[in-house]
């Protein structure tokens, strides 16, 4: 993150006395301005926003297959301590989660369910494909599986392995953090039509339309889909 900060006075005693003077109202004009400038962090709003997002990645508690056990080990165990990266709070509701970890093989029967869960997650949202099966069907090269979850989901980070080591998954999360910080543009997801797909329970009519950037192209698709409309009422 790009941060500029004017250099404060080194001596602790001097800084303490100036703080006392400021609190008593004895600092004025240039002295007051210098005091305030020394205590400010200046950065861009987007940088601060992305800094907050990368350090509070809440994963969705969603396991598909054997990699889910490894994912639970990474997220839930104090040995790996994922709270160092702010990603230890597992949420079992897609509305409260930021990150979907595809842990395991994706069968063609499960794929629409995964896509709907992804659609229900609120922006911004990210997906990690964990393991060989979610990335490319792995050893299961057969009739039942989707060979690569990126056929229906925009995936941000692929973690190889069968299953990946905990260090590998943590490294993938750190890569995702770098991606959030350095390249937060989500425009490439438009070809998945995955923006503005949130479902709003209890609301109906035109005011329920989300105001995000992808709403225009997705609005006809959602209004036609009676299956998504039905549970709202």
């Amino acid at each position, binding site marked *: 993150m790009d941060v500029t900060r004017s250099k404060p006075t080194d001596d602790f005693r001097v800084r303490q006395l100036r703080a006392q003077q400021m609190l008593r109202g004895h600092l004025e004009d240039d002295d007051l301005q210098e005091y305030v400038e020394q205590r400010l962090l200046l950065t861009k709003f987007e940088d601060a926003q992305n800094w907050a997002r990368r350090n509070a990645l809440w994963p969705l508690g969603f396991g598909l297959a054997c990699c889910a056990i490894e994912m639970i080990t990474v997220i839930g165990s104090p040995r790996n301590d994922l709270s160092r990266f702010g990603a230890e709070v597992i949420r079992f509701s897609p509305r409260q989660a930021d990150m979907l970890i595809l842990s395991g093989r994706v069968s*063609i*029967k499960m794929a629409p369910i995964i896509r709907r869960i992804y659609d229900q997650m609120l922006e911004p949202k990210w997906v990690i494909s964990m393991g060989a099966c979610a990335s*490319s*069907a792995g050893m*299961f*090269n*057969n*009739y*039942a*599986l989707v*060979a690569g979850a990126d056929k229906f989901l925009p995936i941000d980070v692929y973690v190889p392995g069968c299953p990946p080591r905990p260090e590998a998954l943590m490294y993938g999360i750190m890569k995702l953090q770098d991606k959030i910080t350095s390249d937060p543009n989500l425009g490439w997801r438009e070809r998945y039509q995955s923006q503005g797909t949130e479902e709003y329970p209890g609301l109906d009519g035109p005011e329920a339309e989300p105001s995000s950037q992808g709403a225009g192209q997705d609005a006809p698709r959602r209004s036609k889909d009676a299956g998504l409309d039905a549970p709202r009422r």
Partner: protein
Amino acid sequence: MDATGLEMMAQRVREAVADDAVVGTHHAYDSASLEVAPARVHDVLTHLRDGDEQPYGILASLHGCDYLPSEPRLGVHYELLSMQSRERLNVKTRVTVEEPHVPTVTDLFPTANFHEREVYDFFGVVFDGHPDMRRILMPEDYEGHPQRRDFPMGGEPVLFTFNEHKLPRWYD
């Protein structure tokens, strides 16, 4: 059940159900199996559950099989278990791909409900009289029966260095 007991069982089934009910017997590795005409499956299992002097009260498993290239291709296996005599008996039947019809045994063994749906899902054997003949594992709009041996393997070719020349224009 030993081979002698299997033959005696086959004879009792012939006398109780019909002469053409039992097509053959097979005994290997302490496993006895009774080959049955597909139209007589329900009658034979009714006799084995209720009428026989050594009743088999539990249907331990029901599964399908594809015997390609021999004909008739499809097979349905019923694994019966007797808790009284602690013995097992396989009942097998064979049907063709063109006429894959077997009477259901759901009324005899309720556990056969899901098993028959699975056999229908993967092998395409239709169980006549089944209360809910739908797919159970594959998606409902899936085409084909994927465990048949002539079903294509599926999946996608993975590019390695050893098969790079076998995948023409993979770089497109």
